[in-house]
């Protein structure tokens, strides 16, 4: 979770990721941010996030992103 927050903060220093819970639905992250984020997460955690994982529910908060990463690491 901490590592995820770190990556997010680096990507968009202007966003309060700890408290924001509609990153996608609220339009905080655009598709360019998402793709950059996916690249970072794939590298950092050695996972493969697929286009089918790109539903708002998986990316609306740092917590949700961390949960997705954990799920993919278990696979």
């Amino acid at each position, binding site marked *: 979770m901490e590592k995820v927050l770190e990556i997010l903060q680096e990507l968009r220093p202007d966003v309060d990721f700890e408290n924001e819970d509609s990153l996608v639905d609220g339009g905080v992250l655009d598709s*360019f941010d*998402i793709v*950059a984020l996916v*690249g970072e997460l794939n*590298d950092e955690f050695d996972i493969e996030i697929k*286009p*089918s994982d*790109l*539903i708002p529910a998986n990316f609306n908060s740092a917590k949700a992103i961390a949960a997705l990463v954990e799920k993919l690491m278990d696979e």
Partner: protein
Amino acid sequence: MSYTSIKFLIFVTVTMLAYFLFPKKWAEYKWTVLLAASYVFYIFAGIQYIGFILFTTTSTFLAGLWMEKISGRSKDYLKEHKGDLSREEKKKYKERTKRTKKLVVALTLVLNFGILAFLKYAKVLFMGGTGDLLVVLGISFYTFQSMGYIIDIYRDTVPAQRNFFKFALFVSFFPQIVQGPIGIYSQLAEQLYKPHDFDYDRFRHGFLLILWGLFKKMAIADHANIAIRTVTEHYQAYGGTTLLFTVILYALQLYMDFSGGIDISRGVAQIFGIDMMENFRRPYFSKDISEYWRRWHISLGNWFKTYLFYPLAMSNAFLTVSKNIKKSKFGSTAAGAHIAKVLPTSFASFVVFFMVGIWHGANWKYVAFGVYNGAIIMLAVLMKPAFEAILRKLHINPDCAPYTAFRILRTFVLVLVGYVFDVAPSFEESMLTFRLIFTDQNLRVGYGEISELGLNKVALIFLAVSAVFIFIVSAIQERNDKTTIRAMLDKKPAIIRWGVVYIGIMAVLVLGVYGSGFNAADFVYAQF
């Protein structure tokens, strides 16, 4: 049967009666009324087209079941051999399953998009003509919608539909078949199958939305269309002032035509208890071109984002390019880090816009339109740090109102440039238009020409007043994003509520374009 015809009004009324009076004890089959109505509507458009939609329905339906069977078999096998397969073997087996599914989905996509492409491009590519080989009603829209479904099945995000007739309804639902919005299976399908009871509030809201759509289409778009048609028929006869006027008028006409049609579709669906996705969110208030494309024809943009942009931008090839730049010497500079981050994505969006462009038809002007939009977005993203630096240097606060107004206006001008490709009959003529707009401005000549375009002074004033009216309504909507004007009206006294309905009906009847010589124009997007 046009959405703006009396025939359609009668058709919807009869369908409503059949749907809402459907026997309660058979409520689970209520959706069959919508299916029957959709096919009646489609047959009215021309029975000769029915083979195309039936082919897409059947091939997609079967492919969905097939893929689900492959997935199911694979899961059963893995469960059965849970103990005696190594991790490696399991992985290999899973990959093999995925490959088979990929083959099925690829075959379905090639077949169905193949038909669409053939009808769109065969005449230009093989027969030396222009235009489509055949315009099959709604083919783009139902093809995109069905292909979205099949990719969802491939991705295991929705279960396959097991009832052929239910699936047929998803593909053919009559309010959306002519020009969308392109529905998403997981959002739309269950709504179609659920038995809905008559709801007076929904009826009232749906009815108002239909009226609003009719007004936009028949009173504004169809009037504007008269002048635009006159210009495009003798394109070379007009000077720069008239061409500029035509392009601005086209911005009004296209938006009113397309969004008015969608309002009618969404209003009809709403009466039947079905919420279709929004397709427009005041696009002309956008502050940059990518925002514009998120607010204009939203369902198409969404489709391309989900099924083309993300897979492309997230593919290994694209991510590797990004990684390589980052590792290089250039990547350690601020500009390099930025480019590494956005180059693959901006290239992917360029590809998307190129595809959106050529989807509009086999004509170089549409290629130019796609390249133009793609290039602007790509440049805007790549150059973002540079633009921000310029603003800082000039001490401009990017969030202040005057700068926001400037951005909205700038985006609108960029959109107008794109429309030139749409209005001009050919690529060469669009280039000529640009030249004349810049070199041949003459108000007196322009005024003379514009007054001869088939619209008298009253009609021209009406269009100008309408544009201001639409602007005001849009500004109110923009300020109240969370609600609708209809919901705001609900809180007003009865006299105002009924007054609006009465004025709405009168406006459509009195101000709409009717009668001989004034045949209501077809929806612009029905041809795509």
